[in-house]
């Protein structure tokens, strides 16, 4: 991901964008973690 | 930064921001530059206290790597001439070296004082015994109980305990002039008459600049050098080159075939940038590469540097192809500090050659005594500020090798039209077995002292792993039998490990010339014919071709795209179905049957070849 951003926007922009991207993902995780678990049955435990 | 005096190395270090930088990385211990500097300064005060003077010659002989480096560096700073004496050297030769070098003192392991019969009560000479610190068990407990280090009278006067008794002095040291001797390494000559190579501070510093330039070193370099420290490639291209660049010397272990895996792992683990080694080690790595092919693919690694003996072209290409890395090939002698000609990566040189001279001049002199034209063979001569100042107390030998400032290397070379040099042979009678020079005369001399032997000769024969190996041809006295093992047992106390013949051949007589001298070339022919009768175990070309053809058919890859280096990972079509076709095709063509475990083990063309050759032998 970072490499793609780096090549597209240069180092400075890539640094900012990657942080935003990670924060966005974190937000998604926190926001949606209370939802029911649709786990694939054969994860084997 | 141009350093022309050794004192400048230490001055820059004193004011360096890299003091906490690691100088030596050992397996579980680091030595920082701060500690090195502190130890060096303490040693210098100790030398002052003991009235040592610049120019004094002192024997250095210890198995501890850090101590070897430390004393060498401290001696350089103080102006003492280090006389390297390999702790492994047998006592006969050690005695001869000590006598020849007229030393002013000894710094050796305690055990060596006894085994070499050095009288440490002789007040005229300086003595310092190195007493390796024993593994201190219960260190934590000691600390908890606040026990002081127990110093027995035995260890009190030995190194490193003596470091606690001195403080680093700030008394200025004498500035060492460039013409001053830096060290002496004994290389060639017979056991009775060893030859000591004298290197000055100027030689050394000039060459450290050259090496730095050729390898592109700086303070970020992490040099993996596990070569023996009592050879120039170990001590110069290890600790000294590291110190000169304020880089890091990585030496977690010494080389041994059984720890080849650790060697692969070390590249990544210790973030190695430059790996200085000999072709034999490269050849072993090539052999045991399985699943370690990615070892050199780290962010840090820059290049492999091959020193000390000829790097075979095939090994060179294979190694670079397998590990996807590059090799710098270095040509040099102990007499030229370390290198002279370099086949560098940047700028690129022609592979298979020794490249170009850096910071020195080279010429090729033909048999007729004139300079050779391009592609004409002749002896390689070298000239530069790094060329040694002659052998210790040996005018005759010096005259034979140094003429009007030119060093006659004794190696036969050619220069191509682009100016690249290539070594094609040698005039001196030496054997280079895995980077170590062995002088067959020394060995013959010792073998002939055996009362059961009538006459003998030692020579080198080609060897796939070591380049060359030492063998001896022997004629025993009439009606006397001598076992190979008996002879080896006889030689052990007399010779170094590298000088023990790897094979012994017995003959009725040895071919002699008109002068009565044994003819080396004729003996060589006899040995090779005797060996041929014993074994031929390599698969010939046609077998390799059948393997490749079967692979091509089974995996659907053009045959010219397949090499013996290919594995199930590198060949696109090598899946479970292709595997079956490949195996059955080989079984049909060779009329054999692979077992389950063999079928499961085959995962590359090399393993296929190995298993196949084993099977064919059994049939």
């Amino acid at each position, binding site marked *: *991901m970072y490499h793609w951003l780096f090549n597209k926007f240069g180092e400075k922009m890539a640094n900012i964008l990657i942080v935003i991207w*990670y924060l966005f*993902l*974190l937000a*998604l*995780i926190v*926001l*949606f*973690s209370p*939802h*029911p*678990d*649709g*786990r*694939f049955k*054969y*994860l*084997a*435990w | 930064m141009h350093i022309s005096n050794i004192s400048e190395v230490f001055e820059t270090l004193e004011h360096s921001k890299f003091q906490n930088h690691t100088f030596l990385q050992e397996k*579980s211990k680091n030595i920082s530059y701060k500690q090195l500097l502190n130890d060096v300064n303490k040693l210098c005060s100790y030398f002052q206290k003991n009235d040592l003077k610049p120019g004094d010659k002192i024997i250095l002989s210890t198995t501890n790597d850090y101590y070897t480096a430390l004393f060498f560096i401290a001696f350089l700073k103080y102006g003492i001439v280090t006389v390297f004496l390999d702790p492994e050297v047998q006592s006969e030769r050690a005695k001869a070296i000590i006598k020849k070098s007229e030393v002013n003192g000894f710094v050796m392991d305690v055990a060596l004082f006894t085994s070499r019969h050095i009288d440490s009560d002789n007040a005229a000479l300086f003595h310092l015994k190195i007493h390796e610190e024993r593994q201190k068990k219960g260190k934590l407990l000691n600390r908890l109980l606040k026990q002081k280090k127990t110093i027995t009278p035995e260890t009190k006067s030995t190194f490193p305990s003596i470091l606690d008794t001195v403080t680093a002095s700030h008394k200025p040291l004498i500035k060492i002039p460039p013409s001053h001797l830096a060290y002496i390494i004994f290389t060639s000559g017979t056991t009775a008459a060893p030859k000591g190579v004298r290197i000055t501070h100027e030689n050394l510093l000039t060459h450290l600049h050259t090496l730095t330039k050729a390898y592109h070193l700086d303070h970020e370099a992490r040099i993996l050098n596990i070569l023996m420290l009592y050879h120039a490639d170990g001590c110069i291209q290890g600790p000294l080159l590291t110190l000169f660049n304020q880089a890091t010397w990585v030496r977690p272990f010494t080389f041994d075939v059984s720890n080849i*895996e*650790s060697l*692969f*792992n*070390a590249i*990544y*683990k*210790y*973030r190695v940038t430059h790996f200085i080694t000999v072709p034999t080690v490269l050849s072993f790595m090539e052999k045991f590469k399985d*699943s*370690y092919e990615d070892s050199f693919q780290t*962010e840090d690694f820059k290049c492999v540097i091959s020193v000390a003996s000829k790097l075979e072209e095939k090994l060179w290409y294979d190694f670079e192809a397998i590990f996807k890395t590059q090799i710098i090939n270095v040509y040099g002698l102990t007499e030229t500090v370390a290198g002279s000609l370099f086949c560098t990566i940047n700028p690129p040189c022609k592979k298979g050659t020794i490249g170009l001279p850096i910071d020195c001049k080279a010429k090729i002199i033909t048999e007729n005594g004139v300079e050779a034209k391009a592609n004409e063979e002749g002896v390689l001569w070298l000239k530069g500020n790094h060329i040694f100042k002659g052998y210790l107390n040996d005018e005759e030998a010096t005259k034979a090798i140094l003429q009007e400032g030119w060093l006659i290397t004794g190696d036969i070379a050619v220069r191509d039209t682009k100016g690249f040099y290539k070594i094609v042979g040698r005039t001196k009678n030496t054997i280079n077995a895995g980077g170590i020079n062995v002088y067959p005369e020394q060995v013959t001399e010792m073998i002939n002292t055996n009362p059961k032997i009538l006459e003998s000769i030692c020579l080198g024969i080609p060897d796939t792993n070591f380049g060359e190996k030492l063998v001896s041809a022997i004629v025993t006295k009439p009606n006397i039998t001598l076992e190979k093992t008996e002879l080896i047992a006889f030689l052990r106390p007399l010779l170094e490990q590298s000088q023990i013949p790897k094979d012994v051949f017995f003959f009725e007589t040895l071919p002699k010339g008109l002068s009565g001298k044994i003819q080396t070339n004729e003996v060589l022919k006899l040995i090779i014919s005797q060996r041929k009768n014993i074994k031929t175990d390599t698969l010939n070309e046609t077998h390799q071709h059948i393997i490749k053809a079967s692979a091509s058919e089974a995996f659907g890859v053009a045959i010219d795209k397949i090499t013996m280096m290919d594995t199930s990972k590198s060949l696109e079509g090598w*899946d*479970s*179905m292709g*595997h*079956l076709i490949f*195996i*059955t095709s080989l079984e049909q063509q060779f009329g054999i049957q*692979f*077992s*389950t*475990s063999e*079928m*499961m*083990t085959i995962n590359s063309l090399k393993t296929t070849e190995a298993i196949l050759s084993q099977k064919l032998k059994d049939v």
Partner: protein
Amino acid sequence: MNILLILIGFCIPALILSWRLPEKLQFIPVVLVTIIFLFYKSPLSLLLLGLSCIINYHVLKYMPSVTAATLVVVLQMCFIFLFFKLDYAVCFNVSQSSILPLGLSYYSFRQIHYAIEAYKKQLPKHTFLDYVNYLFFLPTLLVGPINRFQTFIKDYNRRRWDNRLFSMGLERILYGLTKITFLGNYIITRKLNTFISSISDDYLWGSTYLKIVSFFANSYIQFSGYSDVAIGLSLLFGFKVMENFNYPFLATNIADFWKRWHISLSDWCKDYIFFPFLSITRNAKLSILISMITLGLWHEISIRYILWALLHALAINIWYKYENSFLQKKLDHIPLLKKGLGIFITIHFVMFSFVIVSENTLNESLEVFKTLLVLNI
């Protein structure tokens, strides 16, 4: 989600200690934390893993015949595996529920791998402690991958702090968690499934089709998400564990699919089922069949998984027959169509085959097939 957070929580102290302690002691906290985790979550599993680990290592090391030792280990692991898979554990009151001891599917296969590699004499020099480290490695204990011993030891021996690896690991965990919570749990399980059940019966075919797409997508996203977390955690510890998924929905044929889906298991079956059977029988079709059945039964021991395996084995054999056919060669001239068609057929075959195992009974699966093939009107 719950167990995953606990897993990550347990890893944190082990992680810190493993990078701060002197080199010799670095792996002790990892093993200890794994033991505590298992003790807390499944003491039975801890007992099984602990005992089998000790027995297997020593049997392989000290038994004079390697073949016999390998057989002992393999049979022992198979016995334990089947004992729990076949629900005998409940019958004999060893376990209260029919849920397997935590991680058993993975560590039993790892130990069989180790035994067979010992038989092949392909194991590097190592100690008992190395074997313990390999088996008691928390990140991959629960959800695989069934990583290999050789690569583990190699990584272990050259382990050092590496910024790049560590940040790669953090990123991987983030991606894995996003896949599980957002894509899997929210988008598919909640949104898509609600949407599917809201579709009126007039569009039965459409809703049935969407249902199987959703089942496949969820399986992939959840499983690969869990694998991402496992691989990411391993990276934090300095280990590059093998990948388990490689964009399986882009597979151009069924053989290719099995090189991209649950790679560690299909590789395991290839190395330890397919090749041995191949060398004994010299029959590729049969060997593929046996491998696929093993692969199926790994999930669950039942008729439907055998059916599912048969279907895949058949498909792989058909593919190998077809691969060099005239039609396929013709298609070479239109590579884009060939690729597109390949992907389309493969993914649909896989999704349809999942119907057999996604429904509760075989009858229900049959109904789904009827709907899809428009046979029930």
